[in-house]
């Protein structure tokens, strides 16, 4: 479907002339189902929705398969496959390891559909390694469950399917700026076309957010291979919040061991557990602690306060056996760099790895806002207080498919497309024009990003306290005042203007950081990956979700029950 250029913008947008003289173009398009984010969840949703025959628009901020976190994900995919195991056992383990904060119906859907969806992936053309390891990875898992299909493999297979579907419009290099709402219902999105440097209004009958994570609110994160952004800046959480959706458990950030230096090997997060040594060369982890467990993470975080912690794998052989040719290739490249822990000790830190919290969904992937669905890492309620490694993949595929199916069903019930809300679109245009035309103000968005990350690293990292979180919120509040003074000189034009993109991202990164701090302040206990020094024990009374909502231009905290 070709985008219609609206030349008659004068009567569409009052007061839009200033923008037009600047040369900002506004296009319009519509879809039955609009999907924001084309990683595993978004791409899977698009396939499922398109199969019902409806018109799907899939928006991706980069070329598909060349952005976000799916392409570089290791590939563990958990499902109950060995004799004696069952989806019910799998579900029980996930809830136990999630510290009972998971919504049970979501976990049951995940574990029930994990295997059928893996088979479908294989039918789509992905090479799945079905041979599970001999033993489970984690002490609390009762059976081994790890199938293996690298992220790149998933994306290649999904792309192949998408190409064959003529009713899917793929908009690459497009960044969603805001969800459009009318009378409390989501009716589409305002999108920035990075390639043209233009704006696009896309109206839709149903919208799915599959926009990934927010790891970049921290300076050290496994979500930035080589220290380069993947766009994991929290846009989906904030967009949903602005549209009125409930965000749950936003304090639940999973951290993992990540090499600090050199940044070249920063994506080497999926290392076998190895001796972690303090500055005196002593082992800091007691044996038997699970990989990626919150107990291990907290122990390491405490040791980091005392000094450098190094990972030393020199007495291990670099893994020659890999579960997939791509994994073998990756191992070889890393080894050639000669700076891995197999070759010499590497200083490590705790880096943000995954976001358990997110946009609250039900088993139909519906959020609390009509017309809005969510799937994948951006959603919340599936993993509770601790994601078990290997379950993000089934999450993205199972819920991606479910969101696509349910959003398409909703779209099918609607005859007419919604009208774009004029005042909201105008406000969006004003915002973008303001960034490039601003007379006063000279705040550099790259600085905003740096400062946000510094605040989070200092006051709102793994080990938290009420005082620290309040300091973080205060400093973020001060920084927020600068948002209105960001200026992007547009001498280079608006297309592929990365400073402009960073300005857009500041508008999310900062609120995403504040939401994490607010939720962390709200939960007065320690559970899973949320640790409060002033409330170091788990409190049964806190077996509930924290909630953050956006009301009257402020983020408000609340609680709600866990679905049992």
């Amino acid at each position: 479907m070709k985008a219609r250029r609206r030349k008659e913008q004068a009567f569409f947008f009052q007061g839009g002339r200033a923008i037009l003289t600047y040369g900002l173009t506004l296009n319009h398009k519509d879809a039955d189902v609009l999907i924001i984010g084309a990683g595993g969840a978004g791409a899977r949703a698009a396939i499922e929705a398109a199969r019902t025959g409806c018109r799907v628009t899939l928006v991706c901020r980069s070329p598909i398969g060349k952005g976000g976190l799916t392409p570089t994900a290791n590939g563990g995919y958990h499902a109950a496959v060995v004799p004696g195991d069952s989806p019910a056992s799998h579900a029980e383990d996930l809830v136990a390891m999630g510290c009972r904060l998971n919504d049970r119906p979501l976990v049951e859907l995940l574990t029930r559909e994990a295997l059928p969806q893996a088979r479908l992936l294989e039918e789509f053309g992905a090479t799945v390694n079905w041979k599970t390891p001999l033993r489970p990875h984690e002490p609390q898992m009762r059976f081994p469950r790890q199938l293996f299909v690298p992220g790149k493999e998933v994306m290649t297979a999904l792309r192949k399917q998408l190409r064959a579907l003529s009713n899917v419009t793929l908009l690459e290099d497009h960044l969603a700026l805001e969800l459009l709402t009318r009378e409390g219902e989501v009716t589409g999105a305002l999108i920035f076309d990075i390639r043209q440097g233009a704006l696009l209004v896309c109206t839709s009958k149903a919208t799915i957010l599959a926009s990934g994570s927010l790891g970049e609110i921290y300076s050290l994160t496994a979500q930035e291979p080589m220290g380069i952004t993947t766009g994991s800046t929290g846009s989906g959480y904030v967009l949903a919040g602005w549209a009125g959706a409930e965000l749950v458990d936003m304090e639940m950030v999973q951290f993992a061991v990540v090499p600090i230096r050199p940044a070249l090997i920063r994506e080497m997060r999926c290392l076998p557990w190895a001796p972690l040594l303090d500055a005196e060369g002593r082992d800091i982890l007691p044996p038997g602690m699970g990989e990626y467990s919150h107990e291990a993470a907290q122990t390491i975080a405490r040791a980091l306060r005392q000094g450098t912690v190094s990972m030393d794998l020199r007495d291990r052989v670099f893994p020659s056996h890999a579960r997939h040719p791509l994994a073998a290739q990756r191992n070889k490249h890393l080894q050639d760099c000669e700076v891995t822990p197999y070759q010499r000790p590497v200083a490590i830190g705790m880096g943000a790895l995954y976001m358990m919290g997110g946009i609250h969904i039900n088993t139909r992937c519906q959020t609390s806002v009509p017309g809005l669905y969510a799937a994948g890492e951006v959603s919340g309620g599936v993993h509770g207080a601790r994601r078990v490694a290997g379950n993000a993949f089934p999450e993205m595929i199972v819920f991606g498919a479910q969101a696509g199916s349910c959003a398409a069903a909703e779209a099918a019930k609607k005859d007419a497309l919604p009208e774009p809300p004029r005042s909201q679109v105008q406000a969006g245009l004003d915002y973008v024009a303001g960034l490039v035309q601003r007379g006063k103000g000279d705040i550099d968005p790259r600085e905003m990003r740096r400062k946000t990350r510094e605040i989070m690293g200092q006051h709102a990292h793994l080990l938290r306290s009420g005082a620290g979180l309040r300091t973080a919120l205060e400093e973020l509040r001060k920084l927020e005042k600068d948002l209105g003074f960001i200026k992007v000189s547009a001498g280079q034009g608006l297309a592929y203007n990365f400073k402009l993109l960073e300005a857009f991202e500041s508008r999310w990164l900062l609120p995403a950081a504040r939401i994490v701090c607010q939720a962390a302040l709200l939960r007065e206990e320690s559970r899973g990956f949320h640790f409060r020094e002033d409330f170091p024990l788990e409190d049964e009374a806190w077996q509930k979700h924290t909630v953050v909502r956006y009301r009257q231009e402020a983020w408000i905290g609340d609680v709600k029950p866990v679905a049992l």
Partner: protein
Amino acid sequence: MKGEKDCVRLKVLRCNQQADKPAHQETYTVPFREEKMSLLQALEEIYREQDETLAFRRYSCGVQYCNSCLMLINGKPAHACLTILKPGDEFEVAPLRGKEVLKDLIVREDD
């Protein structure tokens, strides 16, 4: 300012039709902040610290999977993510040949 021995010099072929800038070469000197650095990291450093207008696909899978960082490096197509730089190196960097250049090092993707 670090001495030449601690830096790498990149000569980048740039162009920006939007801003009426035809193809021209610009030279950047990038200091080594860590022991090893990839060409992609050097480009990122230029964007972050020196020249906010430099455009390249700011994505890295880090291990040659995604081909986002394919560009001409000293005249040959190579992955910027795994071109490891040493202090004192000089490299010529240009967008891939035979593809439409959208801006600087960003080219139109083939499907």
